């Protein structure tokens, strides 16, 4: 088990900067996720930890050991590749035993360890199968077993579930978590699936175009995004630009040009992110926080509008309310039966609770 310490990491491929000035500390035994859109540098970072790329600048440390230029075979990391990278000419046993044979373990020890780990991933009956004769989920588990059996200091998973169908993904998610807890192993998990990230991780790092935007627990990332990119990338949100008006007292006041109204926000850490004077500001409010009512409501942050579209997704109902030409707000409620659905065209009132609105700056360094 190790901590992973990345400091000042930059990686360039010719003119492309894949990762820019990254600082991260991943704790022992932590399940840490890299989340971000395609091409943001997640794989590159992971591969620098595994040793397949060397950083252009910066240092990679495991515990206190500088690993920056150590070659991959000497790092004792266990990596699970997106395409599994199982050796096609070997059986399940041979695949899993590969790393142990490299470590020159005795035959009986190899056998025992392989059997143990296969039992853990529930594949013991497939031990002599050729890997090409396994299903996607089974191959996935062989890849996991192969990485776990060498008792790596760090487990690295690069979008391990992206080739599986929705059902199997669910199943494997729990499986991976179970194994991670069982082995209590520092794990870095790469994904661009936010549900995966939110449900599995101890902490998440959100990347965009080579830069880490925010590091935090799933609730922090979701409830307290630091900028508009994170707010928009994780979950659904209503996002529009605002101007500052009065930033004093228990309630701050901002002005939205789009709504041509003032927005009142509770002055707290939860509702106002830190920003600089020069920053362009946005307000973000999650659809599940938006209240829609047919009857007029008293107080601030209430706007009138017309129901534009009602979308039924099964467990919940989305109501899109058009306030004016510039603004359509989305509200989400749990499904409580057809009688509660609003009709399209209905005049309604929308309330954005002061304690649920979040004011955030525009993300920097975006192209």
């Amino acid at each position, binding site marked *: 088990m190790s901590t992973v310490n990345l400091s000042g990491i930059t990686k360039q491929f010719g003119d492309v900067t894949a990762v820019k000035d990254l600082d991260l500390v991943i704790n022992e035994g932590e399940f840490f996720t890299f989340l971000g859109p395609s091409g943001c540098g997640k794989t590159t970072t992971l591969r620098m930890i595994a040793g397949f790329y060397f950083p252009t600048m910066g240092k990679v440390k495991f515990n206190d050991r500088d690993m920056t230029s150590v070659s991959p075979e000497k790092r004792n990391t266990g990596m699970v590749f997106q*395409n599994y990278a199982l050796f096609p000419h070997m059986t399940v046993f041979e695949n899993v035993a590969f790393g142990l044979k490299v470590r020159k373990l005795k035959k009986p020890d190899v056998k025992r360890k392989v059997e143990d780990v296969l039992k853990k991933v529930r594949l013991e009956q497939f031990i002599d199968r050729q890997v090409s004769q396994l299903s996607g989920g089974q191959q996935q588990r062989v890849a996991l077993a192969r990485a776990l059996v060498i008792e790596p200091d760090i487990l690295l998973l690069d979008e391990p579930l992206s080739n599986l169908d929705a059902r199997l993904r669910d199943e494997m998610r729990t499986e991976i978590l179970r194994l991670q807890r069982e082995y209590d192993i520092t794990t870095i998990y790469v994904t661009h699936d936010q549900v995966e990230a939110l449900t599995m991780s101890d902490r998440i790092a959100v990347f965009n175009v080579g830069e880490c935007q925010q590091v935090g627990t799933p609730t922090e990332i979701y409830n307290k995004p630091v900028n508009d990119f994170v707010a928009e990338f994780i979950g659904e949100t209503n996002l529009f630009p605002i101007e500052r008006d009065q930033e004093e007292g228990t309630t701050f006041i901002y002005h939205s040009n789009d709504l041509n109204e003032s927005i009142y926000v509770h002055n707290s850490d939860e509702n106002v992110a830190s920003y600089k004077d020069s920053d362009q500001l946005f307000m973000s409010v999650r659809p599940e926080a938006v209240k829609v009512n047919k009857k007029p409501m008293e107080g601030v942050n209430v706007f009138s509008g017309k129901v534009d579209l009602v979308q039924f997704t099964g467990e919940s109902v989305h109501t899109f309310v058009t306030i004016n030409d510039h603004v359509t707000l989305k509200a989400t409620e749990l499904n409580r039966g057809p009688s509660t659905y609003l009709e399209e065209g209905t005049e309604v009132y929308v309330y954005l609770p002061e304690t649920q609105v979040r004011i955030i700056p525009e993300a920097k360094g975006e192209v």
Partner: protein
Amino acid sequence: MLNAEKRKTIYLLIPVILILAGYVLYPSISTLIESLKQNGAFSLGNYTDFFGPKAAANMEALWHSVYISILSVLLSALIGVPLAYIFNRYDFPGRQFFSNIAIMPIVLPSLVGVMAFMFLYGEVGLVPNLIKDLFNLSEVPFQIGGVSGILIVHAYTMYPYFYMTTSSALNNIDPSLEEAAYNLGSSKFKVFWKVTFPLLTPGLVAASLLVFMVSMASFSAPFLLAGGYRVLSLQIYFSKMNGDMEMAATQSVILSFVSIAFLLFMRWYQSRKDYRMAGKGIGSHRSEVNNPVLKAVMVTLGILAMIILLLPHVTLLVLSLVPEGAWTWQTYPQALSFENFRLLFEDPNIWDPVRNSLIMTTLACIGVFIFGMITSYALVKRSFIGKNLLDILVMIPWALPATVVGMNMILAFNKPSVFSFGEVLVGTFWILPLAYFIRFIPLVVRSTNAVLEQMDDSLEEAAQNLGAKWFYTFRRVVIPIILPGVLSGTLLAFVQAVGEFPTSVLLYTLDNRPISIEIMNQLRMFNMGQAAAFGMVQVGLIVIVMFISYRFFGVKSENSL
């Protein structure tokens, strides 16, 4: 600091570059230098002679070569494409069997092949005489020789290039494309010309280029059949035999120039992004033939093609069973026996060429196996500056006509050099295995490239991640995965090396003369039976090795054709 990856790349490249520089580049340059010398002094004299009136024969030979090559392309295409179409698109009895026979020409080494053709269709050939006797004609109805002979042999040996490329292209065409055209109301004919044919063109162009190059280089057919007809590959041989090394070098350079130009053109053509084959191969539909007349025609065609394809092999077999003196002035052989084979196995002198061929071929195959694998790995999996150049350098021996490779070897190693460790190689045993090795490197590199490109980089990374060092990974992961590709290339190298003639005839000595040379000698002494028996040994070796590799490794040589 040089990182570990870069260091590995460099270690890999050092032997590759040394060998290519020493045995491909240096010999070619030696020839170039020789061609720029006249009576020991540097001059362009040889080239003015070549193109000038002084040696008009040369220009004539160049044009003849081009002329024959163009006709060979047309003829091979005319046979190969329709056959491939019929046998891949229609299902009728015996179809499968025929497609297996279709590659028979490659198990017939060039020299024996030509010899069989002479006895089949030549002046005293079995087929014309049989027709004459059957129909009581006063003269043989036809006979091949000269240009027509060369062309027919070329069509026979080179049609597989068209057959194979067309077949694989047909199998890769998404059938829904044609179905869409039918669905839109096109007639069968229109669909072929407007949809299928355009999809086949890339393959056809590639095959045409290939056949053109192979015919330009062809040696055995003109050697035995040309009579007075001049072609360039043969002119080189004559110049060398007349001791005019400078002219031989000049002719080689000009032929090399044409070949390398073709190689570059072919690379360019194949590197264009080809949208046409973008779809995944789904396996073509074969139409079942129901019309009984059509079915009969198809089956007849199949049987006919099969007979024509196998006749040379049968002829060779028959010839090898004719004891000395049993077929001299008579139209048909008078007796058959195993005399020739008995002699072969009993007389150590007669057995010698077989042993030579085996030893030299094996040495060359071991060489190309190892070297081809390493080179291909470096080319596909490593990045370095000048990769494209190295790639071209590797393919040069493939583009160069065998005669030119032979000349290059002579001019490079008839004097001591660093690459021959200060020895003169010409006139020794080693020159031939070395020449075979060089000629067949590209076969292995090409077939290995194909599988290596399929192999995902993450496999090596996974092994490394699990703690395996590079060499362990290479041994335990890379080699087992690419082995079929390497083997199929090596197998093709074996098949071609066993029957190799054009390079051998320039480089052999008494001690290392291979089977082909012995066949030539026996032919010169009109010992047809003995020559054919040697030919059968070549065919036998090829068939045994092909069978073993197919049986035990599932490797087919035609895959890397």
